Structure formats: C-alpha cells, structure tokens
C-alpha cells in the first residue's frame, strides 16, 4: 500500500525533515501517531484520532482514507476519539474532508465516536448545503468573449469620460454667467490647499531642477569656454517648458490625487447622493471649485517655479562656475523673452485644467468601496500625468510650427 508519509505504519521521515526545516512543526512527529485507520471485518473503517491536534502542527493528509475507501467493501466510516487530546479546527477540517470523501463514494459516516463538540461543529459546517451557482468558475470566459467584454467596457468608460467632459463644459459655462452654485469658502479653501500649501514642494523640486539643468549644460559648455550660456539654457528651458511641466507633475501627484480621493470617499459615504437628492449638482458644487482653484493657481505656481529654477541655475553659476550673480541674471533676462513667459504660463494653466479634470473625473467614477477610492487616486495621477505629457508634446510641436 502506498500511503502518504506521516501516517502511523509508514516511515516517519516527514516529521524529521519538517522538524529540520521548520522547528515549529516539531509537533508533526506527534501527528505521526495521531491518526490510524483500521479496516473492520464488518465493512466499517475505523478512524482512530489520538493526542493533540492543532493547526500549528499542520493538517494530516487524507490520502490514506481515500486509498482504503477506493479499495472497496466499506459501508461506513466510524471514529474512535477516546484518546484525542486537545483539538482545534485542524480536526474539524480533517473531518469535513473525510465527510466529503464519504459522500463522494456513497459511504456512510458515523460520527457517534466523536466528542460532542466536534459532532455539533461538523453538523453546523454541513447544515447549509453549498449553493450550486455560488462558486466562481475558474475556467473563465473564452478568449473571444473577454476581448468583447473589454471592448464594451472601454467603450462604456470612454462614453462616461465624454459625458463628464460635456457636463464640465456646461458647468463652466454656468460659472462664466455667474449661475453656478458653489460655496465661495470652498473655492478659497481649495485655492489655499492647491496653491499656497504647494509652495514648499514646488520650491524644492524646481530649484533642484534648475540646478540639474545647469550642471548638465555646464559640462558641455565648459568645453567651449562658454559657461555664461548656462544662464540662457536654464532660463529658456525653465520658462518655456520645464517650469510648467514639472509643476504640473507635482500638482498631479498632489492635488489630482487629493481631488480623486475626496470625491471618491464622498461617494462611499453617500455625500454625493445627498447633494444630488437635494437637487444640488455635484458638478457645480464639487467639481467646479476644484477645477477653478487649480486653473487659477497653476499659472502662479508655474511663474514661481520658473523663478526658483532660474535661482537654482544661478546658484550653480555663481558657486561652481565663478560667474557673478548680476552677470548671470542679466544674461538670463536677455535670453528669456516675454513670449516665452506667456507661453509657459499658458501651458501651466492648461496643465492645471487637465489635472483637475482628471482628478475629479476619476473621483466621480470611483466605486463604492474603500479600495476603489485608492484605485481612483492612482488612476487620477496616471491620467493627469499622461494628459500633461501628451499636451506638452502637442505644445512643443505647435509652438515650433508657429515659430514661437
């Protein structure tokens, strides 16, 4: 008979190996003698349970019983638990397995030899039969089905994105006509949160970006002895593109995620439902102030970031390249034109619009569980950054074509 190891009557190597690998599983050696089966002449299979059974010791394999039952001539499985010590769910799980096995093979199960508590728990576990269609099928849908489902889902999402954009445009129209209903204090608070409170991080990141650009440029320009042009490089790069871009990315991670999380959790707590049933449009009341706040703050933050980047470049120019501060700043002023500044600020406000829209869109689309709020925040950042980068590419092409 090829019994699984660990059962009395076969070799005890499993216990020893387990004990070497997992000292905690020493109790396995106890299990070696915890279970034995005996075939009675009257067609009963007597299962003896001995000693302590605990989940820490692992579950005993049920294979030996299967082998016996499949051997035939067994009409009933009986138990002898006279020497069973302390037990927990390990015994119960084992018994449930035995019971399932017995049902599969049309063998009767006689639980009378079990302690009262175990008998009752076993009855409880089997009191409600498994519902036929409850178990999720793991075979999955056919490949073609999944393609179709994905296409329909994408179509549905795209439609809801467009719907949101349409509603937002209408709401902006109402805002321009002064008919949108939201609280001024909300707008003020959001403006403070997404503007003033973002200054430290914007300072740090744009200053360092200016510094990095200056270093990269300096190495190349030093070979021509033209280090003063570091000022041109840093100034133009920051003001035209990098200032708005990096500020946008910071704000996507900061405000975009915050907006999505705020709206998503308001959906979970039914606060958005409460607005809708009071006939207050959540688009006006929640989305508009967020979009307006970011649209107002992004240009200002961009300007501020430009200045910090130039300062970062100047720091390198003065401290490492031996340029004088006045010289550096004059060179920057010469290189940077007003149209650069206006272009950069314009890009910044467009990015602000995109970030706020992405954040609110994902927040409104969020499901009603806490994990979907997390997904909404993640998705808001991803959508926001992708939108910014795409817009940046479009701007680069358009500005080049227009000769700006």
């Amino acid at each position: 008979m090829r019994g699984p190891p660990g059962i009395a009557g076969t070799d005890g190597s499993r216990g020893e190996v387990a004990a070497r690998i997992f000292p905690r599983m020493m109790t396995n050696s106890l299990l070696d003698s915890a279970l034995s089966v005996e075939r009675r002449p009257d067609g009963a299979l007597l299962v003896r349970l001995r000693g302590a059974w605990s989940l820490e010791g692992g579950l005993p394999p049920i294979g030996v019983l299967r082998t016996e039952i499949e051997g035939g001539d067994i009409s009933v499985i009986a138990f002898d638990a006279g020497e069973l010590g302390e037990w927990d769910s390990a015994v119960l799980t084992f018994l449930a397995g035995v019971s399932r096995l017995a049902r599969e093979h049309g063998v009767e199960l006689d639980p009378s030899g079990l302690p009262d508590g175990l008998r009752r728990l076993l009855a409880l576990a089997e009191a409600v039969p498994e519902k036929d269609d409850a178990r999720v099928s793991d075979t999955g849908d056919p490949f073609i089905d999944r393609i179709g489902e994905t296409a329909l889902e994408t179509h549905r999402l795209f439609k809801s994105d467009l719907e949101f954009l349409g509603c937002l445009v209408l709401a902006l129209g109402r805002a321009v006509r002064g008919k949108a209903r939201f609280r001024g204090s909300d707008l003020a608070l959001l403006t403070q949160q997404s503007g003033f409170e973002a200054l430290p991080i914007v300072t740090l990141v744009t200053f360092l970006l200016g510094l990095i650009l200056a270093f990269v440029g300096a190495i190349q320009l030093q070979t021509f002895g033209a280090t003063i042009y570091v000022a041109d490089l840093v100034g133009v790069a920051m003001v035209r593109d990098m200032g708005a871009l990096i500020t946008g990315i910071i704000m996507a991670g900061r405000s975009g995620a915050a907006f999505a999380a705020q709206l998503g959790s308001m959906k979970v707590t039914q606060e958005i439902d409460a607005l809708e049933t009071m006939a207050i449009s959540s688009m006006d009341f929640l989305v508009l102030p967020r979009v307006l706040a970011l649209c107002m703050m992004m240009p200002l933050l961009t300007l501020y970031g430009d200045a910090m980047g130039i300062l970062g470049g100047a720091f390198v120019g003065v401290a490492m390249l031996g340029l004088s501060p006045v010289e550096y700043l004059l060179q920057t002023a010469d290189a940077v034109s007003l149209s650069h500044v206006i272009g950069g600020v314009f890009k910044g406000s467009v990015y602000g619009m995109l970030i706020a829209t992405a954040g609110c869109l994902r927040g409104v689309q969020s499901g009603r569980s806490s994990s979907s709020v997390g997904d909404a925040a993640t998705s808001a950042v991803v959508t926001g950054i992708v939108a910014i980068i795409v817009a940046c590419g479009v701007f680069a092409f358009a500005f080049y074509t227009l000769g700006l």
Partner: protein
Amino acid sequence: MATAAPARSPAPAAITVRDLTMAYGDFILQRDLDFTIATGDIFVIMGGSGCGKSTLLRHLIGLNEPAKGDILYGDESFTAADPERRAEMLRRIGVLYQSGALWSSMTLAENVALPLGEFTDLEPDEIREVAALKLALVGLAGFEDYYPADISGGMQKRAGLARAMALDPDILFFDEPGAGLDPISARLLDDLIIELRDSLGATIVVVTHELASIFEIGTNSVFLDAETRTMIASGRPTELRDQSANERVRRFLRRGEP
C-alpha cells in the same frame, strides 16, 4: 395637510409605483413592483438582506433609473420628468442616508444651512437661526459648530435628519434608520419618526429589516422577496405577521418561526 395620523382612512397617494422593474445591466433585482404610498403613511420597505430594499429607495429618490415602469409623485410622473422639473420635485423630499452622509467638510449648522441657502431667499443670520432650530428639533442644540467627525454615529444620524427636514419636506425617506444604533437610540429615533409624521403631517418611507421598528412605526408596508425577485406581500406589518398567507413573510416577521 392632516395633523392627526390618518392611518386607515383613504388618503391621497403620495407616491405610486407602477410595474417597476429594477435591474443592474442584465441582472434583474426586482420586477413587477406595484404599490401606493398614501399621504401620512409610515411606509416600510422590508425584506431580507440583498433583496433590493435600498435599491428601491434609490429608485424612489431618483438616484437609479428604472429599467421599466414608472414612479409617480402625487399624480405626476417622476421618472418621465425633465431634470428641472425633477429638481423641483426633489425639493419636496428629504432623505436620511444610512450613514448620515453629512458633508464632512462642513459643520452641522452649515450642513443644515446649505439647502436653505440654495433654495430660499433667507438672509444669512435667518438661515443660521432656522438651522439651529432644526438641530434643536433632533436634540442637537448647541452642536451647531461641530464637524460630523467630532460626534457619535447616533448624533450624525440625527443631524442627517435635521438636514433632511431643512426644507420642511412633504415626504421623508429613511434608509436603515436603526442600523448601527444601540437599542435605546434606535427606539428614540423611531419615536422621533412618529412624532415628525404627526406634527409635520409628512409621509414617511422607511427601509429597514428591524422587526421591533417595523411593528412600532409601520402603518403600511411592502415585502420584497430575494428569491422570487418581486414583492410577495403588502399591508400593515402587524397584520402581515398574524395573517399573511405567505409563509416566507410570516417567518420573516416572526424571526424564523413559521
């Protein structure tokens, strides 16, 4: 509007549900729902977990659209109304959500004041006065400047009720009012519901499965069944308990005893 409880006298219909089918995509949650909620009723929507009680409430207040059928407020269709007309109809109702759903960024007074500010021409200090009164009605005088996170779950529910009553609605909806409350608070809320019906003359619609509450306050009800996916009984809850022909309804109302 009547001030006494017109429990059994024929009263005009506040809400009529006609041949309503509720579905999520292809999955039909409930079908063939047909009932009338009379003015002045405390109407209980009951049934086991997952049978679609709360979804029915969401349909009644316009958060979900019916797959089929019609919902009438008075004798005017709510389902077919255009958004503006619907907004006007919504102003006549108040909803207390299961978790209170207070706007967490506003104080209690601001929560109650928001609908007042949106839909009335009151001056700011008048609004503040009305809001304080509404909070006092639910036993929260003095808590005007607390934020929802600062008060207990029971108080949040009462504050939610104050907000639902802000515009003196004709119909008040309650989603699981007793859920998460200790027995005494739940009882007090039940008493408050009856008191509001009697004093304001409002019609009240309650979604719940708490038996004590169902028998105490319900004057009429509908029972949604999860298995057959339709309504299998309607009437006064105490009568259904004693006389319903349907065994599932009797078992539900007698905590599992046939």
